[in-house]
């Protein structure tokens, strides 16, 4: 696995960790309720399920796969955990077509080409100067340039020419790191396999440089909107957290924390109406971020307590499909719609 042993060239990466499996490092949280309190202080309201999984992830040094509908706070969870643990947040935003060179590392080939060209200019200069005295000794010239090429090769495959991408960056960081692999369901299967390798070993082998091991295992969050089934192997490796729409109480509290200037009554009403809408059969349910947008809209409009007409007039902030809007407007304003 590791190329350290076979490669004659000694690894020069200064960030190489100790041999063996990386250390998880000191715990970042004391207890589940410690997770909850500190996240709440940072403006992220977790329930016991969320806090419990974050706590376990830290203790077991395992990645968390966070799955759920869009806008339920998956990305925000990772960011908030980074904030409260004073960790550096490293984010890998996934998209279709993301490959090793953007996820792990790549060689800065433009810089390498420039270096090669610079070398050639120097070498050509040498050549013309030596041409008079040394003509005909082609063999010696070749040997010299062979040595020069090996030096050059060693030179252009050194740290200076390496572009570290998020995964390598997270592995070799000496600080505490929260690695966010966002929307992992958009990756192709091959890249997912690469990710799995990194998350199993917490090390990266670079053939030209050697193996880089994590000094401290990063806290890893992978988010997924569930647009495709992830591989069994990746799921086995991770702890699983399903982030669904929050309970009435939690959503109300999220509104209270995230919407400046909102009154308790309006926050409560907003959460209740959204809960009500989520019981209807809709094409797309309002997410937490849409709840927040709606609450902000109402605050801007100076609403303190919402009535059906105001709700109807602003529903488009919450619902995106025409058929959903029509259904919701009817349900909210017609007496006993379900009876």
């Amino acid at each position: 696995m590791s190329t350290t042993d076979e490669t004659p060239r000694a690894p020069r990466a200064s960030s190489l960790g100790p041999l063996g499996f990386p250390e998880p490092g000191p715990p970042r949280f004391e207890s589940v309720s410690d997770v909850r309190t500190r996240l709440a202080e940072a403006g992220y309201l977790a329930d016991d399920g969320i806090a419990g999984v974050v706590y376990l992830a830290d203790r077991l040094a395992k990645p968390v796969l966070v799955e759920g509908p869009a806008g339920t706070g998956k990305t925000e969870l990772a960011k908030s955990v980074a904030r409260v643990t004073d960790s550096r947040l490293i984010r890998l935003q996934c998209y279709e077509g993301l490959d090793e060179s953007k996820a792990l590392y790549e060689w800065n080939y433009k810089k390498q080409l420039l270096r090669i060209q610079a070398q050639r200019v120097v070498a050509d200069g040498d050549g013309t100067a030596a041409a008079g005295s040394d003509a005909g000794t082609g063999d010696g010239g070749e040997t010299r340039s062979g040595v020069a090429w090996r030096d050059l090769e060693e030179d252009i495959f050194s740290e200076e020419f390496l572009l570290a991408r998020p995964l390598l960056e997270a592995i070799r960081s000496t600080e505490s790191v929260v690695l966010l692999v966002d929307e992992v369901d958009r990756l192709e299967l091959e890249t997912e396999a690469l990710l799995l390798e990194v998350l199993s070993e917490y090390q990266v082998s670079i053939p030209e440089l050697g193996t880089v091991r994590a000094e401290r295992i990063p806290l890893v969050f992978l988010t997924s909107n569930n647009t495709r089934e992830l591989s069994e192997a990746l799921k086995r490796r991770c702890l699983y957290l399903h982030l669904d729409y929050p309970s009435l109480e939690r959503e109300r509290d999220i509104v209270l924390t995230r919407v400046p200037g909102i009154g308790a009554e309006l926050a409560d009403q907003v959460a209740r109406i959204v809960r009500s809408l989520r019981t209807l059969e809709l094409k797309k349910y309002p997410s937490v971020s849409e709840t927040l947008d709606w609450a902000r809209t109402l605050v801007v409009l100076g609403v303190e307590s919402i009535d059906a007409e105001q709700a109807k007039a602003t529903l488009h902030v919450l619902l995106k499909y025409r058929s959903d809007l029509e259904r919701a407007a009817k349900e909210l304003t017609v007496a006993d719609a379900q009876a």
Partner: protein
Amino acid sequence: MLDVLTGFVSELRAAGLPVSLTESLDAAEAVHHVPLEDREALKYALAATLVKSSTHWKAFETAFEVYFAMRGPQYDIDADEGADSDRPSDEADLPPGEGQRGRQGGGGGDGLTPEELAEMLFRALMNANEAQMAAIARQAVGRYAGMEPGRPVGGTYYLYRTLRNLDLDGVLDRLMESARQEAPDGTLTPLEERLARDEFQSRLDALRKEIEDEIRRRLVADRGTEALARSLRKPLPEDIDFMHATREELASLRRAITPLTRKLAVRLARKRRHGRKGPLDFRSTMRHSLSTGGVPVDPKFRYPRPAKPEIMVIADISGSVAAFARFTLHLVHAISSQFSKVRSFVFIDGIDEITRFFETADDVADAVHRINTEADVVWVDGHSDYGHALSVFWERWGEEITPRTSVLLLGDARNNYHATQSWVIQEIRHRARHVYWLNPEPRAYWDTGDSVVGEYAVYCDEVFECRNLRQLEHFVSELE
């Protein structure tokens, strides 16, 4: 603990969850990090390590409630003889009540008359008093469920008996009435009305769950963990048999289908975009080489884009296979953007094209719903007649099949001993790109009784058994 965990993991596996060895070891380790007395924490720790799909959560939860049920003498079915002194919480929550004088012993609340209990239930719900709701749930189960030790009836039977006696619909009406009376001018606006109803409904749901839990705890005490878990085991949504689904199962299938269609659409789109690499794209390679001084460092390839297929679905929608047809039509139309065209036909003994339903409705579910009421599919008696339906299809639409069309036939091919007219399939096969048959019956039943699927099969590319969403998903994702 380890023993319980081992049993629990085997139960999850028996229920169809793919729990690996690594995961069960993870669970054992995770358990060390939660306080043992904290049941909720234990539940989340086990869920995080053992359940990796939200559709499996329900099966997990049922098993968890059985394996880690609260235990103790207070849950014995014949609790009257049980140790009453072990029931401090009941004593605290429910007063002795009027009827107490005539009775001996009994836990808290045993002495209440039915009217007193109903009144307390109403007030507990009105004030959202959770402790009291739990106590009433216990009391109601003891009183109304009529549980007897060793009786082999399921939990739903006891639940039904308990709920019938509590008359929750009546309670909801009373709650609404008193909410109206409390309103400033004695009425609620439609919006307030709706929000109040939702709130009470969610409290009633909590009560119902409390009652279910109580029944389950007593059943565990009576029958033992494993036996009970076995009798509560339910198929996962993806394994529910289309032909024998209960109403509740159909509802969970409907919930499962939207995320499934999204996944399928992404997968199909991706498959088309990322076929194998095509030939070298010379122009693009040269364009990109400009940044490297004209050295073509990074060769670019053309990606072949396979043409989208055209789909024709011909579905039997009679009785036992109707659910299967509806789910398949729903699925195919929900991902219709992945095909160049989708046309659908439904039949019983007559046949009708229903493509227009999907073109006009902006909701696939609505369109599927319209099939039942608006499609013109009965010719003589409304018993499946594949032969007649297929020959009419051929006469009216046969010429519209092209070499780019894939034809999907859905049904159990139970033809009520009519003529099969299998030549139609042969003709279709000549014109179409592919002909597939999806049969919702178990393979073992094919060609038994009046099933004639074999006669059609000889002219199909392939006949697939398609009993559940798992098999349907697999078929559609391979479709071309």
